[in-house]
Every structure is written in C-alpha cells, then in structure tokens.
C-alpha cells in the first residue's frame, strides 16, 4: 500500500484473441447473500473455523496471516498476491463481473473503494458492529471506508502528506526549508540555477499526486450522491493548485524521471531530486530502496498556500470483504483482527507501515522514534501532526481507477508540452464526464 503507484509494469501480454477468450467467462452476477450477520457471529465463526482467501500485496501480509493462524488454529487463510494496485483491481473486477473467483478479503486502496462499493460488490460491515470501531481510526482514513453510513472496510494504513527533502543538498546550496508554495517555487529556481542537473522534485503527471494536491488546496472536484456525480476540476482548490504548480511545469523546473523507476531511485539517492511531496509511508520506501542516501533526508510539513498548516492524504488503503465470499462472518472476523488487533498492527508497524489507528499514532513510543536514516530526526512527530491537518469532505470518483488510467492522456500532455495544467484538467474532466454518462451515471447534468 505504501507502494502507491508502484511498478505499473503489467506483465500482461493479452492479445486481442485471448482478450476475446477471457471475455467468454463474463456474465453479470452480483453478490448473492445479504450481509445480515451480527457482532456475535464473528466469534462464532472464529470458533467454528474454515478457509478464506486473502488478496494483498503489503509486505506485512505474510507475517500477519501467520500470526492470525497461530491465534486461531481452526482458520486457514490462503494469502494470494494478485498483483500491485491496478493489477489487483483488474483481477478483482474481472472476478466480480464473472460472478466467481473473487477472494473473501482483499486489500483495496482508498481511492478504489467507492468503485467497488458502487457495483455492490462489498459487504456492508455495519451489521457486524464495525461502526463501533470508528473511534479507533483517524478521521481521514475512516471517511474513506464509511460511505453514506455503510462501512465497506477497515483502514490499514494512511498517508498524510509531508515534504521529504534532501537536507544535504539544501545545505549545500544554502536553501531554506520552504513553508509556502511561493518559497517552494523560489527554491526550485535557485536550486536548478545553481546546478542544472538538480531539480526540486520530479513530476511527470501522477493522478494520485494531483488529486492529493488538489485536496490540500481545498478543492472538492468530485462529488457523488448515489449515481449523480459532479466533476469540477476547475473549482477554487483545483485552480489554486494548477496555477502554482504551473510555475514549475512551464518553467521546466521539474525532473521528468517517472516515479518508481530505477532512474528515480538513483535520483533520490544522488540528490538529483531534492524533495518529495508524498505520503507518510515514504520513510519505509526510502530506507529499503535508497539506502545510499542514509543521513541525507529529513521531513518537514507540507508547504502551504497561505501559511495555515494543511495537508492531504496520499495513498493508503484498507481491506474489504467481498460479497462473493461464502463465509462472510469469518472474513469479517479476520478483517477485524487484521486491522484492529494490537498483535497484527505490531507486525504491520515493524514492516515500516504508517498506521491509521489513533492509539498507535499517539503512542509515545511511536512518536519518539528517531530513525538513523533521517539523521535522528523524530519524523513521526511531523507525520502524525500532518495526519491531524487533513481537510474533510474529500471524495474520489466512483470510477477513479478508470480516471487514473487516462490521466496521462489528458493532464499528462500539459506536463509533456510544458503548457497550462488547467487545460489538461479541463480535458480530463471532459473525458470523465463523457465516460460517466456512457456508464449510466448522471454527470454534471
């Protein structure tokens, strides 16, 4: 999950013919049973035991499943890594469309949950008493799983955004840590002028990043009320972000290294990319994938537009129970253990994850951590503080997975040509409105 848009190397070699073949398996069949269990059913299901399947790509999944099976020997959890983010969603969506083959429990990032919830593929866990768990999670992640009073999953991690910056590079060129976007752009200019091979950050157009940045700027471009959808990628927040980011795009001040590529990791290691505005799950990635830069990086709050501390969530996700599950009570019981049992969360934290549970976010032990990689800085204080400054009311589209897939075709063109991002956002909006209306939504009408 910390691997947000990581490795989109789809090793899929589907030709048109095999595509036709796989389509032969398609027949619409929604979920069968209704989620009519109660909280007592969970304990009973764990007592009785059984087998469930769990799809996940989190590094901690294996150890968590092992710990669960040790605690509940009668339950057998089959862990499957069905691919990372969009690869998994494709498989999940295919299984849902086919009417069989979906797992009992699956990892789904927050941005994709509305899409699966809308197609009535997920179990509403409210009847199992999951509503009582609300207090245990920070507000941002919880609002992503609680859609119109229905609880479609439990949050596992969260990604409040912060600014990761290469302190060594900043010191070398005498750049102060920017606190506003004006200062950020000035720092970008200064750094690039001092050494043309160095850039303030890399951005070739990333839908997850853009939506998070709009979120931080106070935008609410997507609103959905059932199937009535409104898309306004030119609202105040969207414009505010685009106008300030334009100065970097049009000024050629952004490295064009695509995120998560080998070149990107190298650039993070040698100072070519000096900052990253990204989710709190980043320290784990830096430590494991950019070991050569140990001691260089530090964490600061996100730059803001007017000095008022504000940030947004970037990435992160939770687990859901599929309606196709034959043993929904057991699946729900596993999910509850996975994302609320201290033993499970301990395993998750050890793997470098950033929690969504308030108890862990506020634990003195967590806050006091001073990783050597960050030169002994108490980074969690900054990151936990960020988790409290996430504006509420943000929604993703009920077809966000598709929206992200055409981002490069639309907004990406503005990045490529160094032109106005607002035009790119407008094109994106136009295509999303068309698609939504074709798919039976009522968009912008």
């Amino acid at each position: 999950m910390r691997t947000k848009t990581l490795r989109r190397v789809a090793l899929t070699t589907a030709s048109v013919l095999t595509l036709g073949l796989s389509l032969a398996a398609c027949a619409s069949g929604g979920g069968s049973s209704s989620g009519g269990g109660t909280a007592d059913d969970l304990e009973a299901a764990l007592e009785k035991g059984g087998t469930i399947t769990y799809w996940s790509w989190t590094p901690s999944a294996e150890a968590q499943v092992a710990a669960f099976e040790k605690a509940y020997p009668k339950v057998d959890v089959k862990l499957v890594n069905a691919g990372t983010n969009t690869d998994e969603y494709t498989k999940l969506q295919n299984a849902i469309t086919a009417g069989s083959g979906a797992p009992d429990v699956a990892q789904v990032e927050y941005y994709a949950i509305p899409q699966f919830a809308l197609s009535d593929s997920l179990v509403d866990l409210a009847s199992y008493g999951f509503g009582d768990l609300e207090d245990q999670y920070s507000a941002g992640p919880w609002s992503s799983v609680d859609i119109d009073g229905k609880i479609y999953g439990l949050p596992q991690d969260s990604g409040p955004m912060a600014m990761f910056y290469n302190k060594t590079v900043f010191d070398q060129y005498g750049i102060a840590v920017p606190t506003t976007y004006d200062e950020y752009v000035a720092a970008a200019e200064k750094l690039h002028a001092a050494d043309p091979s160095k850039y303030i950050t890399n951005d070739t157009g990333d839908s997850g990043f853009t939506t998070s940045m709009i979120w931080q700027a106070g935008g609410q471009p997507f609103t959905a009320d059932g199937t009535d959808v409104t898309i306004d990628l030119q609202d105040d927040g969207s414009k505010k972000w685009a106008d300030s980011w334009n100065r970097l795009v049009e000024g050629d001040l952004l490295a064009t290294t695509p995120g998560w590529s080998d070149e990107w990791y190298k650039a993070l290691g040698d100072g070519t990319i000096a900052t990253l505005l990204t989710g709190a799950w980043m320290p784990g990635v830096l430590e494991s994938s950019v070991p050569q830069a140990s001691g260089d990086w530090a964490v600061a709050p996100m730059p803001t537009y007017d000095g008022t501390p504000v940030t947004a969530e970037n990435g992160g996700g939770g687990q859901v129970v599929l309606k196709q599950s034959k043993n929904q009570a057991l699946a729900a019981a596993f999910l509850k253990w996975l994302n609320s049992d201290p033993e499970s969360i301990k395993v998750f934290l050890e793997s470098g994850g950033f929690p969504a549970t308030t108890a862990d976010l506020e634990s003195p032990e967590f806050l006091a951590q001073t990783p050597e990689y960050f030169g002994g800085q108490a980074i969690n204080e900054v990151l936990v503080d960020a988790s409290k400054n996430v504006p509420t009311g943000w929604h993703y589209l009920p077809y966000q997975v598709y929206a992200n897939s055409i981002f490069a075709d639309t907004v990406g063109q503005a990045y490529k040509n160094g032109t106005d991002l607002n035009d790119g956002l407008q094109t994106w909006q136009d295509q999303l409105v068309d698609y939504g209306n074709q798919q039976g939504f009522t968009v912008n009408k």
Partner: protein
Amino acid sequence: MASVTLTQSRPMRRNRKDWRGWGFVGPFMIVFLAVLVAPVVYAIVLTLFRQQLVGGSGFVGLENYALLFQDPKFWESLFRVTLFLVVQVPIMLILSLLAALAIDSARLHGTGFFRIAIFLPYAVPGVVAALIWGFIYGNQFGLTGSINDLLGADILQPFSSDWILASIGNIVTWEFMGYNMLIFYAALKVIPADLYEAAEIDGAGQFRIISGIKLPALRGSIVIATIFSIIGSFQLFNEPNLLKALAPNVISSYFTPNMYAYNLSFAGQQFNYSATVAIVMGIITAVIAYIVQLRGSRQEVR
C-alpha cells in the same frame, strides 16, 4: 413417380455418406468450433450489447460500430500502427534478407555463429526484450545517457514523442530480424545445387545468381514473412505497454489498437466496445493480409 423416388433417394444416399465422414472430422470440428469459432462468435455478440456500471446490460445493435468509426482515438492508433508498418517492416525484412544472403553466400567465416547470434534475440521473451531496451534507452543512467554525456548534448531522446515510434521499431526489428532471416535462409537452402552449377557454367557472377536464382526462389517466403509482419505490427502491444511505465505521457492509453482494446476493457470495464475494436482490427488485418497474399502469389505465377 419414378422421378420422385429418384430425387428422394439421392439426398438420402448423400446423407449416409456425410455422416460417416463426420465421424472422422467430428473430433476436430468440436475442438475447432469450441476454441476458434465460439470465441469469435461470442466477441461479435458482445459488440451488439453495452454493459454499464450503472444500469446493467442492454442490446444496442450496431451502435458500438457507429461510435468506433467516429472515435478519433481509434483512428489515431490505427494510423500509428500503419505508419509503423510502412516504415519498420520493409527495413526489418531487407535487413533479414541481407543477413540470410550473406550467411548463405558461403563467403563468411563462422556462419554458424552469426546465424545463432542474429537469431538469439527472437529467443528472448518479448517482455524481457522491452525491459532490456527500457534500461538502454534511459536518458539519465542508461546507455543513451552515457552516449549523450559523451557527445555533450542531449542528442538521443528515445522517449520523446518524435522518437518513440522509431525506438519501438528498433526493438521490434532487433527481436524479429533473426526469425525472418531463418525463414529466408531455409528457403535458400532448398535451392538445388545444380542451378548454381549451371549458372556458373554460363558465367554468371554472384549478383546475377542472387537476382536470377535466389530472389525468385525467395518470393514465397517474402510474402509469408510480410504477412506475419503485418499481423505483428497491427497487434503491437508488449513493447509500448511496458515502455509506458517509462514514458507515461508519450505513450497514451490508446497508442496502438491493441492497447486501446486492453485499456477499454480492463481499466474502463467497456468490454463491449473493446470487443468492437478487436473485431474491426481483425477484419482490417485480414483484408490487408489477403491483398498482400493476392499480389504476392500473382507475381509468383508470372
């Protein structure tokens, strides 16, 4: 009466014969219908419907086709692979031909080595080949970056929108040159040696032998190789789809018709429209391959 019974008995006799034949053909026909005809028929049926995220599935007749013919994204992708076809396929086939003639000329040392070396890229899986070339093309840390550093300017830009098609063409040529060379080489090998002897007695030089004996003998295999290459070009998918991770803004989600079909289906859940793209592309490919074959065999007869 007599004539009536006659006409009745004729089809009956034919029927009995037919059924016996079916016993032999049956197993093949079952497999043929199940794995070749049924998916195509199913795909055609799919194109007549439209399934929505909201509201389920409904019959729309030929609406998907009407939409497709007005879809600029589809035409753009088709134009792109056609351009690719017109430029890349002749280059690749001429290189293959030259390699086959050189190896067949018996004037090279270590032909066995060259034959294997040229064929080897074909043995590399397409996915791996695209990843290897992705590293080579990297203009910061890849080979391209090193060459640019050496030249002191960003001359090579394999991932820029002007170059990307050539970059992909280079990968495809590298991959399939050896395969086509082998087809040509096999055809050259079956030319009877007495033809060469006769040519030598008549005093023909090497170039006369090539134009008079070798090229005419190769005509059939050139047609075959061309048809394979046309199909391959129209089905271009692996290379651009893998390089998309490295050049996301240059390679769009509808860069080739196959990528468009794939993304429509798996990112957009538009299975019906995706099937329409697949069917139309199948027909276009078949028509063009047929024209090439027709032209090729007419020349052969002449």
